[in-house]
Every structure is written in C-alpha cells, then in structure tokens.
C-alpha cells in the first residue's frame, strides 16, 4: 500500500509536469503560427511601404522634372518678354516718319536814354516745326510771333521749305527759305544764338541783305582733307523796293518783275574751327520810283559779302561785311542807292579759365558795327555806329540771361544818339 502510494506520490508530479509541458507545446505551436502570420503581414506591409516609397520617389522625380520644365519655360518666357520689349523699343525709336517742334523765345526789359519810355517786352516766340521722312525728305517751317507796341500780335512765316537730301553732299531746298547770304541772317539770328540782345547794325529786316527768298536752292558740304567746302546757291523771286530808301528783303510769294534773283555763299571750314565765307547776289528791282509800268525792272541789284569766324572752345570771334548797290537802269531818272554793314564780335566763355560752377557760365561779349545807307551819295538817317557790350549767363547750353549796354551813334546829326540798357532772357528749345 505504501509502495503503491509512494509510486503515486512519486509519479504524480511527473505526470503533472508532463501534462503541463504537453499543454505548453500546444500553446507554442499555436504562437509560432501567429508569429509567422504576423511576419507575413509585416512583410506585406513593408512591401506595400516600399511600393509606396517607390511611388513617392517617382512622384518626386516627376515633380522635379516638371519644376525643371517650368523653370525652362519661365526662362524662355523672360527671354521672349525681353526680346519683345527690345523690338517694341526699336520700333518706337525708328519709325520712318518723325517730327519735332523746336524753336526759341525771348523776353526782356529795355531802358533807353533820351526820353523814350522804359519798357518790358517780348522779343519773339518762334516755333519751328520739323517733319522728316527717313533720311531723305524733311519739311520745316518757322513762325515768328511778336507783340507789337500797340498790343497787337504779328505773325510772320520766316521760312517754309522742303529739303530733299539728294546725297550726302547735296540737298535740294524748295519753298521759302532764309537767305544764304552771309552768316548772321541764316545761322546766328535766333535769340539764344545771338550773343547780344539786338542784331548788328544793318542786319535787321530793312538792312543791307535779304532776310529770305522764295525759290529753289542747292546746298551742301564736301569734305576735302582738313576742310569742308560748303556751298548754297539759290534762285528766287528776289527783293523789291519798299520805299524810296528801303528794300523789302523778305521772300515774296510772287515776282513783280521778270528777273529772278541769283544768290549764293561759298565757305571753307577748317578743322581748327576757322571758317571763311564769300557771298554774292544779283537781282532786278522794281517798285518805288518806277516811272514806266512796262519796265521789267528799274534797278539792278548787286550784293557781295565776306564773313569769317573762329569758334574753338570758349572763343567766339566773328566778322562780317556786306555791301549792296541798286543801280538805276540806264535812262531812268533815279538815284543810285548803296548799303553797307559790317560788324566784329568777340565773346569768351569763362569755362575756358575756371571750373567754378557759377563763374564758368559767364560770357563777356563785345561787338562793334557800322551801317551806312546812301541815296545819291547822301547818308540816310538810319546810318549809325553801334557798340554793344555785356555779359551773358548760361543757365543751360540754350538758356541765357543777358545784361547788355548798346550805344547807337547816328551819322546824321538830326537823329539823336541813344544808349540802351537791356536785359533779356533767351531760351532755345
């Protein structure tokens, strides 16, 4: 009994432990299956993640590619915009037809000795209209608007001409043009170019030489080593007698005789800024004192002139002499008339000796000239000696304030001498 009991007691734990182990084995087998499933599941997840990663990578690559493409397109777009803007600017800058309005104006104050009332005045307002087609043709016209002493406004057509550029050295001018005689009338009379306030004696509208003419002109410049030969030859309706003592020297729209005027100027311009010019004109005159209306002319008109200038740097030195004569046609009871005017002028910009921003803009000017008008050897009362002296202050290359004194000594005693104190603001635009 004891042995049996002992055996039972002895085997009972063994049996129990075997039973326990057996249960655990079952459990272990079931866990292994679960792990495998989990591993499979994890592997599937990893696979899907890798696939997802691959897809993301591809998406990223696509995105980069598209970004690059967009960048390329942006560059192309920028380039296109820039090229379009360039084309636009070129088109805006070089149309075949171009035009511009330039000109000049002046205003000032003048006090005159001898009882004449001191006055403010507007010198003139002279707009110039230019219309240009390519490098071939240009039409240009200048108007001059002046306020008269009585308050009325006078408007004159100074010139209205068509310029046809035949080649680099020749231009054909048709219409009403400034006379090519001398240098002052054609090139130096605008207020912002004229160094003094008034014109030189005898070079005004009723002076020694024509102001303008209506007709045809050939002109140009021909380079020759260090020189440029400049020429202007004109055929026009010519001047007419205005009164007994004066010629009407502005361009006429019709000829009152059968003689066209021939006028011209030839000059040599050296690269050292020295220029010498020679002028000549011949025309038939009719008008005042005509005794026979059937005559084609009552006088023969001849003019000659010489001018010279030196314009290097701050210097502006000029000389001009013009002489004209109206000789009555043989058989007419008329007196011979002569006109002669000359002037010499010196101006110097202080910029030549100082860099000071104020003083360098001053320009002292001095001019002396004479004008003699004679009929039958007797001097007319307009004959005079004229002194000009003053200072110009250049606010800009074409804007000047002028302060001048002008002395007019008349040759004929009946004409009282004058001293004029002048202030002028001149603006070239």
């Amino acid at each position, binding site marked *: 009994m004891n042995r049996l009991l002992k055996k039972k007691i002895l085997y009972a734990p063994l049996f129990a432990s075997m039973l326990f182990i057996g249960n655990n084995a079952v459990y272990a087998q079931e866990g292994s299956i679960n792990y495998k499933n989990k591993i499979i599941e994890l592997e599937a997840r990893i696979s899907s993640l890798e696939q997802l990663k691959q897809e993301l990578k591809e998406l990223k690559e696509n995105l980069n590619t598209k970004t690059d493409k967009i960048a390329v397109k942006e560059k192309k777009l920028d380039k296109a915009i820039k090229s379009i803007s360039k084309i636009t600017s070129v088109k805006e800058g070089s149309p075949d037809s171009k035009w511009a309005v330039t000109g000049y104006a002046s205003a000032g104050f003048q006090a005159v000795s001898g009882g004449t009332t001191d006055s403010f005045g507007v010198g003139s307002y002279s707009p110039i209209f230019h219309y240009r087609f390519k490098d071939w043709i240009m039409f240009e016209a200048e108007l001059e608007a002046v306020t008269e002493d009585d308050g009325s406004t006078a408007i004159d057509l100074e010139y209205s001409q068509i*310029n046809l550029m035949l080649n680099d050295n020749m231009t054909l001018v048709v219409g009403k043009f400034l006379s090519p005689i001398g240098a002052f009338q054609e090139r130096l009379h605008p207020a912002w170019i004229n160094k003094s306030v008034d014109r030189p004696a005898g070079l005004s509208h009723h002076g020694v030489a024509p102001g303008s003419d209506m007709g045809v002109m050939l002109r140009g410049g021909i380079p020759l080593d260090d020189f440029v030969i400049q020429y202007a030859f004109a055929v026009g309706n010519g001047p007419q007698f205005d009164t007994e003592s004066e010629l009407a020297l502005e361009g006429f729209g019709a000829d009152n005789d059968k003689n066209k005027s021939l006028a011209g100027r030839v000059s040599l311009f050296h690269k050292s800024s020295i*220029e010498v010019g020679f002028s000549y004109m011949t025309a038939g005159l009719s008008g005042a004192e005509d005794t026979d209306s059937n005559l084609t002319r009552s006088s023969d008109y001849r003019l000659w002139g010489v001018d010279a200038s030196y314009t290097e740097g701050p210097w502006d030195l000029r000389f001009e002499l013009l002489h004209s004569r109206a000789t009555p046609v043989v058989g007419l009871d008329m007196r011979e008339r002569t006109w002669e005017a000359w002037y010499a002028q010196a101006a110097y910009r202080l910029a030549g000796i100082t860099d000071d921003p104020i003083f360098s803009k001053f320009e002292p000017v001095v001019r002396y000239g004479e004008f003699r008008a004679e009929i039958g050897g007797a001097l007319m009362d307009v004959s005079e000696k004229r002194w000009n002296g003053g200072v110009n202050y250049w606010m800009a290359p*074409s804007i000047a304030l002028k302060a001048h004194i002008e002395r007019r000594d008349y040759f004929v005693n009946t004409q009282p001498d004058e001293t004029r104190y002048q202030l002028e603001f001149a603006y070239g635009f």
Partner: protein
Amino acid sequence: MNTVKYIATIALLIFLAIGFAADAAEKTKNDPMQFARGAKGWALNCERCHNMRGPKEFSDNDWDTIVTHMRVRANIPGDVIRDIAVFLKAGNNEKVKK
C-alpha cells in the same frame, strides 16, 4: 520739248542721287567707330554757331529730326550727321534707362 527733256533728266538724276544716299546710310550701320567720329563731329560742328547741346536734351526721334535740320542749315555732310546722331542717341535719357 527741250524743257521736258531737261526736267526729266534732272528728275532722273535726283532719283539716282536718292538711291546713293540710301545706300550710304546702309553702309554706316553697325560701324563701331561711328560713336567716336560722332563725338568729334558734334564738338567741331555745333560750336560753329551755338553752344553744344547735351545728348540728354532730346529723345532719339527728336535727335534724328534735329540733326537733319542742322545738316541742311549748316551744310554738314550726311555721313558726318549720321555719326553725330549715333553719338547723341547713345547718350540720351532713353538709353540711360536701359
């Protein structure tokens, strides 16, 4: 009849001359020395009558018109005027902005 022939001959010469002028204008395009020649021509020719105007005073179009006016008024040869135009247009406001 002789007058008609005379006028026709002059007209023909004028048109030929215009052709030469256009050809000369084409030849000077893209000439790198134009600017330098233009600066020299500007300094030499403008002062013959008036102060030198600054390039910034006018636009390209204005300069083309103004130099053509000066070509006629001052008898300046066409090739010199084209050089001066290049110089002035290179130094005006429009170009500075670019």
